[in-house]
């Protein structure tokens, strides 16, 4: 069979007649913008190959291939290629077929033996590839930067061309399994990612420098300061038995491991901090001590936090940026470093109760949709279940609302009644009753959720509305499968909103789970927030078949910093310590805004 003809026909069916494969080599400092070094592009049909070095790239006023609706650029992790387009001031391709994304969707939930890199994909399909060592050596050469000898230039271009040759092998092999219209939709998101990565998140560099300067001296003092309220540390060692005593003394039922020991992982602390605010500071402290590597926070010389957003890396299809390089990592207090530059404002726009709304709309459960539309779905749930009276409010039935909120969230995360009991500090029987009330109140949701699991187990895959599939592997987890339609469609919604906003020219600094952080001149911020909220509403209607989710916005105009109540106390304590240290005259560590990765 003529595979090339198959590829051409597939594209022709969606009006695309020019097919180019391309790969850039580029370097970038942590937090910095990409600096293209060379480009190799191949016209798949004519077979011509273009090899442009850095000076060719700078001279050109556009790429050697078309970027209009009748052309497609085939890439492997295309946000990098679009990032180079943006760096060069070139137009962004209308159509991108990203084979990384398509390989991910094809193997999502399974474990391709060599991972999802280009070499992994080639190995998966039994196609020839260069060795890992050669690839790594060339990557390091690109990162090293100029000046390059003529031999090094030739080696880099030649290496770049091996990736294009790999794309030429991979494309016809993968094409029969590619759902092209939706694949192009997924490719469109890669452009949005490139734009968001380019914008980056503005941070207070002066404060980051001080934080880094003193960070080595901070943890010990921070422990002393925060542990005054807990008394669980011995030196810098967290003592399990003391934590048990503290939780028991504060009547906080803590989740336990099968061994009977308390679960002290980050997720348990995060969950418990949501239910018991008095735990929040300890959660922040532990996250900072164990996971915060300030040197890795990727901030460029222009004071923007930038890192690879790692689109489509999570099973749900969500982005999975490095927790240490991205400012929206686990240490919430660190987010208070974010501040818009003078004359600008940041706006954090998030969907309200996004997951509840998705579950309601996609299951078509009328009671659940009614609850979402009430504005307070958790209280509405309590009223619908007959536990709170009509007219109940957050003030009159706050405790009931909290329990029903925990129950609704537990359902979303596939939590059993034992864990729910721990989270709400009630008996197992009480938790069982709450979950039973959920089943009775929202029977259509449960029938849909059961059907989703059945569908996955019967057909081997479960798609979102735009075809992001999770495949059922040998170690399939029914809980994850059941959760996929809500999480995966949440990811679809955020991708659509990212596309709509970035294509309008809105400066999106970062996508964050169910939110977008955008930036605008102060005098235009209201307008930009309104446009962002409209884009998010449109995205929700498209994903949910017409059902609209609400969003809310918090605006932080310079000189106000971004704030998050969960991190405010910790932030204040860290700065108390820094001021003490600065006044003490101790010798600080060498500051660095941007550190090269080792």
């Amino acid at each position, binding site marked *: *069979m*003529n595979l*090339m*003809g*198959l590829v*051409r*026909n*597939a594209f*022709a*069916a*969606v*009006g695309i*007649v*020019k097919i180019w494969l391309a790969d850039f080599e580029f370097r970038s400092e942590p937090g910095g913008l990409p600096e293209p070094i060379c480009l190799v592009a191949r*016209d798949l*049909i*004519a077979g*011509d190959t*273009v090899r442009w070095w850095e000076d060719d790239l700078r001279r*050109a*006023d*556009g790429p*050697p*291939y*078309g970027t209009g*609706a*009748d052309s497609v650029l085939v890439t492997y992790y295309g946000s990098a290629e679009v990032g180079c387009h943006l760096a060069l001031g070139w137009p962004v391709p209308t159509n991108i077929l990203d084979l990384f994304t398509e390989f991910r969707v094809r193997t999502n939930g399974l474990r391709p033996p060599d991972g999802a890199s280009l070499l992994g994909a080639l190995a998966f399909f039994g196609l020839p590839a260069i060795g890992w060592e050669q690839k790594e050596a060339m990557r390091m050469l690109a990162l090293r930067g100029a000046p390059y000898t003529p031999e090094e230039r030739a080696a880099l271009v030649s290496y770049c061309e091996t990736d294009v040759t790999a794309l030429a092998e991979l494309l016809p092999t993968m*094409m*029969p*399994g590619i*759902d*092209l*219209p*939706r694949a192009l*939709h997924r490719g469109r998101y890669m452009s949005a990612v490139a734009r968001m990565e380019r914008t980056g998140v503005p941070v207070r560099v002066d404060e980051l420098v001080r934080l880094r300067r003193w960070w080595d001296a901070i943890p010990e003092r921070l422990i002393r300061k925060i542990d005054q309220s807990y008394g669980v540390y011995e030196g810098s060692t967290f003592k399990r038995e003391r934590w048990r005593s503290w939780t028991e003394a504060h009547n906080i039922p803590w989740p336990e491991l099968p061994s009977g020991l308390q679960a002290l992982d980050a997720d348990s602390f995060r969950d418990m901090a949501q239910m018991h605010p008095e735990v929040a500071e300890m959660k922040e402290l532990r996250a900072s001590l164990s996971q915060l590597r300030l040197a890795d926070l990727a901030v460029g010389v222009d004071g923007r936090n930038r890192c690879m957003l790692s689109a489509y890396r999570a099973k749900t299809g969500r982005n999975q940026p490095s927790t240490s390089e991205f400012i929206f990592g686990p240490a919430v207090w660190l987010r208070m470093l974010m501040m818009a530059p003078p004359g600008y404002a940041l706006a954090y726009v998030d969907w309200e109760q996004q997951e509840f709304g998705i579950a309601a709309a*996609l299951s078509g459960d009328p009671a659940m949709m009614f609850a979402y539309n009430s504005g307070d779905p958790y209280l509405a749930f309590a009223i619908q279940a*007959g536990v709170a009276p009509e007219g109940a409010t957050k003030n009159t039935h706050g405790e009931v609302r909290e329990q029903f909120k925990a129950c609704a969230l537990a359902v979303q995360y596939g939590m059993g009644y034992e864990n729910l009991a721990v989270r709400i500090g009630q008996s197992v029987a009480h938790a069982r009753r709450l979950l039973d009330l959920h089943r*009775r109140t929202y*029977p259509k949701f449960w*029938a*849909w959720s*059961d*059907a*989703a699991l*059945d*569908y996955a187990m*019967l*057909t081997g895959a*479960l*798609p*979102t*509305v*735009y*075809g992001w599939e999770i495949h059922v592997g040998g170690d399939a987890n029914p809980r994850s499968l059941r959760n996929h*339609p809500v999480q995966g*469609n949440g990811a679809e919604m955020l991708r*659509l909103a990212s596309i709509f906003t970035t294509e309008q020219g809105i400066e999106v600094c970062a996508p964050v789970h169910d939110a977008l952080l955008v930036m605008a001149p102060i005098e235009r911020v209201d307008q930009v927030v309104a446009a962002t909220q409209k884009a998010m509403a*449109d995205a929700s209607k*498209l*994903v949910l078949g017409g059902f609209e989710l609400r969003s809310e916005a918090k605006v932080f105009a310079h000189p106000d910093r971004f704030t998050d109540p969960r991190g405010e106390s910790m932030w204040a304590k860290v700065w108390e310590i820094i001021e003490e240290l600065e006044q003490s005259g101790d010798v600080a560590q060498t500051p660095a805004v941007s550190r090269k990765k080792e």
Partner: protein
Amino acid sequence: MTKKSEPAATTTTAEPEFQPRPDTHEANNILAEADMNKKPDETDVLTLLRVSQDFAAKAGSKKVITTVPIRNPKRGEFLRVHPTMEPMLVYTLVDEQETFVATASIAINFPGDMIPKLLAPTISRQGTLFLWALRIPGEDGRINNWHASAKEAAGRAVRVWVRVQANMALGAYEVYEAVGAIPDPEWPSLSMDEIVRIAVKGRVIDSLDHPVLQKLRGEV
């Protein structure tokens, strides 16, 4: 900048036809059509690309009822009686905690042992289908308070959710109606014959040689 020659837009007939995955057919066609009529409306295209999330319609499963107990309501259980299915009169005989049913022609040979009962299709709030075995008045037309109150409760359960609770001092069941807007039950799509067939599967006395009758006669 060097401009590369543009590739030919047409394909030759010798090349294989691309066969898109079945679920992309519609979207492919619409996209191609839309493209011919200039730029398609983005909302329309994105709406067309939606994959249905109605998993039950695509490849779901349905519950098959294989067991229908014949019993009285459990303590604390709220229930409804089917509003249109006529209860079925059967003669019952309990042997080692199992309820057997017999035809009238058999039952007539065992007066006092075979108890006539009405089997009313009933469903609990948890969705469990069962046949509520209700006593009917004896030949003298009399019925005790326990049985009368159960019958009264079953009558109410046709319209509202009820639970019954034995009150020993009273010598009858007390009936509690649910207050509040509890939705009506979803009945399985089974006929009365099918329900009874499932309920009495393997426990029908249709011959005088049935082992249970042999045991009753002291023959086994």
